[in-house]
C-alpha cells in the first residue's frame, strides 16, 4: 500500500483523538492510527523514537491549525507511576454554538480575511475563511467596494512572525536613525503592530536584557531565527502594552507645523488633523520624531516644523542629505 500522505495521517489522528474522549496512550495512537500503524514496531527503539518525533511534529502542525491536542498526565494512586494520554476535547475543538454570523457579518469577515494579500499570514487568513465558509452563510455584498490591503510583502515580516509564534529569538542588523552604521541585535519578538501603516515590533533585547521597540523598515538585514533558542515572555498581552506605550507617547509629544494654505500638504494634513489656526499653524501629536519627520519630508517646503527642536533638526538633516545626494548643497 502506498504511504499515506501527511494530511491523511494528520486528519486521521485528529478524527481518532476526537473520538476517544478519555484520550489515548502514545502506543495506542502509534499502533492504530493509519500512517503511524504501518511503521509501528514496539520492539525497535530507533524506529519507535523516530515515530514519536513524527507524532510531536504532527501535534505541532495540528496546533497551528487551531486544534489543541491536550496532554493529560494521570498519576496512579495505587502505585508509583503515571501515564500520559492525548486527546482533543470537544470544547477546545468546536466553535462555540453561540458564535454565529449573519450574512452581513460574514461579508465583513471575508473582507477582513482578504486584506492579507501576501506573506505567510495570507495562508492563515485563508484558513480562517475556509472555516467560516463551513457555516454555509450566504454573503451579502454591501461593502463590496471596500478593499483594505495589509502589506507584509517581505521576508522580514514572515521571519519575525514565525519567530514570535514559536517564542523564538531572531537576529538582525538594525539602523537607528542618526547612526551611521547598523548594529546587530538579538531579540525575542513579543508583539507585531502595524500602527498607521508602519510595522513596529516590541521585543525583548537579549543583549540589554530589556524591552525595545523596533521598526521593521529599519532592519537592514533579513532577520534569521536562531536555532534552538526560545524566550518565554509569560502570559502578557504585549500588543496591548505596545499600543498603550505608543499612545502614551503620542499624548506626550506635540509638534507645531506651519503649513502653506495653498499647498497639497494643507489638504492632506487637515483631512486628518483638522483645520489650521489663523497663523496657518497646525498642532498635532506624534509617537516618534523620526517617523513624523519621514512622513513630512514629502511635503518639502510647504510644511515648516516650528517645534519641537528635535523635529526641526530631523527634517533639516533629511533635506540636507537629499540635497547633498543630488548635487545640491555641499
Amino acid at each position, binding site marked *: 500500500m502506498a504511504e499515506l500522505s501527511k*494530511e491523511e495521517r494528520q*486528519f486521521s489522528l*485528529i*478524527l*481518532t483523538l476526537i473520538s476517544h474522549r478519555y484520550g489515548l496512550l502514545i502506543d495506542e495512537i502509534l*499502533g*492504530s492510527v493509519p500512517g503511524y500503524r504501518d511503521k509501528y514496531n514496539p520492539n525497535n527503539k530507533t524506529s519507535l523514537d523516530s515515530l514519536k518525533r513524527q507524532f510531536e511534529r504532527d501535534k505541532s502542525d495540528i496546533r*497551528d*491549525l*487551531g*486544534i489543541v491536542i491536550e496532554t493529560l498526565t494521570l498519576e496512579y494512586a495505587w502505585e508509583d507511576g503515571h501515564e500520559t494520554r492525548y486527546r482533543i476535547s470537544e470544547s*477546545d*475543538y468546536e*466553535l*462555540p454554538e453561540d*458564535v454565529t454570523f449573519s450574512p*452581513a457579518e460574514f461579508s*465583513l469577515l471575508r473582507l*477582513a480575511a*482578504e486584506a492579507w494579500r501576501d506573506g*505567510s*499570514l*495570507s495562508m*492563515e487568513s*485563508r*484558513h*480562517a475563511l*475556509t*472555516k467560516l*465558509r*463551513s*457555516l454555509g452563510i450566504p454573503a451579502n455584498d454591501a*461593502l*463590496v*467596494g471596500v*478593499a*483594505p*490591503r495589509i502589506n507584509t510583502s*517581505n521576508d522580514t515580516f514572515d521571519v519575525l512572525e514565525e519567530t*514570535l509564534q514559536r517564542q523564538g529569538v531572531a537576529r538582525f542588523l538594525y539602523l537607528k536613525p542618526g547612526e551611521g552604521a547598523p548594529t546587530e541585535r538579538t531579540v525575542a519578538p*513579543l*508583539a507585531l*503592530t502595524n500602527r498607521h*501603516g*508602519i510595522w513596529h515590533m516590541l521585543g525583548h533585547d537579549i543583549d540589554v536584557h530589556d524591552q525595545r521597540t523596533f521598526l521593521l523598515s529599519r532592519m*537592514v538585514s533579513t532577520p534569521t531565527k536562531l536555532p534552538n533558542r526560545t524566550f518565554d515572555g509569560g502570559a502578557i498581552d504585549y*500588543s496591548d502594552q505596545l499600543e498603550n506605550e505608543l499612545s502614551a507617547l503620542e499624548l506626550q509629544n506635540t509638534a507645531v507645523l506651519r503649513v502653506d494654505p495653498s499647498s*497639497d500638504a494643507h*489638504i492632506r494634513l487637515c*483631512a*486628518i488633523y483638522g483645520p489650521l489656526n489663523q497663523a496657518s499653524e497646525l498642532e498635532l501629536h506624534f509617537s516618534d520624531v523620526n517617523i513624523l519627520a519621514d512622513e513630512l519630508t514629502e511635503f518639502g*517646503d510647504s510644511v515648516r516644523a516650528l517645534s519641537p527642536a528635535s523635529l526641526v533638526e530631523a527634517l533639516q538633516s*533629511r*533635506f*540636507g542629505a*537629499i*540635497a547633498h*545626494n*543630488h*548635487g545640491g548643497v555641499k
Partner: protein
Amino acid sequence: MATAKPRAQASDRITLLLSLVPYLLQNNPVSVAEVAENFDEKPATIKKMIEDLTSMGVPDRAGDVYSNQMFDIDWDLFEHDDIISLTNTVAIDATPRFSGREAATLLAGLSLIEQAVDANTKSVISELIRKVARGSSQGTAEITISAPTPPSGLETVTRALSAGVHVEFEYRSPTSGSATRLVDPVRVENVAGTWFLRAWCHSREALRTFRVDRLENVRMLDTKIDIAIDPSTLPDTLFDVSDTDIVAVLELPTWARSALADFAPREVRSAAGKVQLEINFGSLESVFRAISLRPGLITVVSPESVRAHVAAWATSAL
C-alpha cells in the same frame, strides 16, 4: 508566491476537510457545484476531496477501521448526479475553532475596515471582534493593526459606494490644479496606511485613482450610477503611468528596496549592496514622494534634470 512552503498545501487541505464535513452535515444532500461555490474551490477539487474522505475513519485499538467508523456517501448519486449525500460520518460535526494566528488576521482586517464604515457598521464590527476572539482555541496572536484617524471624506465615499450613487468633490492634482470632479465610486482601498478611491471620473471620462485625504468638500449626490463597474475587474496597480513623461532611475540600498514596491519598479542593476530601479512617474511630485519614503537613502541617478529638480526642492526646504 515566493514564500509558499510545502506545508501550506497540506494545511490547506486538512482545513478544507475539517470544514467540509460540518458543512455537508448541515446541507445534506447537496450538489458538488453548490459546495464548490460555497468554498470557492473547483468542483473537481471537491470531488477528489470527497473521494479521499470516504477512505478515512477512526480505527479501533487494533488499528482496524470498520465501515461504520468511516465516512461514506451515496455513490450512485455522487457518480451519476454529482450530488453528495452523506450516509455515515464519524467524529467531527462542528466547525473547528480559529487558531490564534487565524483570529489575529481577521481582527486586524476588521480594524482596518472599521475606519471606512458608518456608525452602525462600526458597532457590528465591535461585536464581531468579540465573537472572533471567543472563537479562537488559543487566544489571539500578538499581531495587531492600529489604524490612524481616517481622512474626513472617507465615510461619505463609502456610504455613496454602498448606495451606488455619484460623489462630487474638489480635487487638486499635482499636474492639473484644482477642479470639481464628478465620479462613480468603484472601490476604496487601503494601501500601506493610505486610503485611495478608485472611481470612474466623469470630468476625465476615465478610471482614476484619488487619495482620499486629498478630497475636499465631499458630497454624496442622490443620482444613481448608470453602469456600475465591477470592482473585482480593477487592476491591482493603483496608478496607470504608462503615458508618463518622467522615467527616472533611483538607487537605494538593496535591503530597503521593498519601500518602492508600489511604484512598479524595474531593476536596472544591482551591485555592492545597492540596487538601481527604473520607475515611471506621473509627475515630479511623485518623484519627491518616492524619495521621501526613505529620506536620504534613495537617490535619483538619472536623468540629470530630475536630479536638479530634487536638489532644488530639498534645498528650498532647508
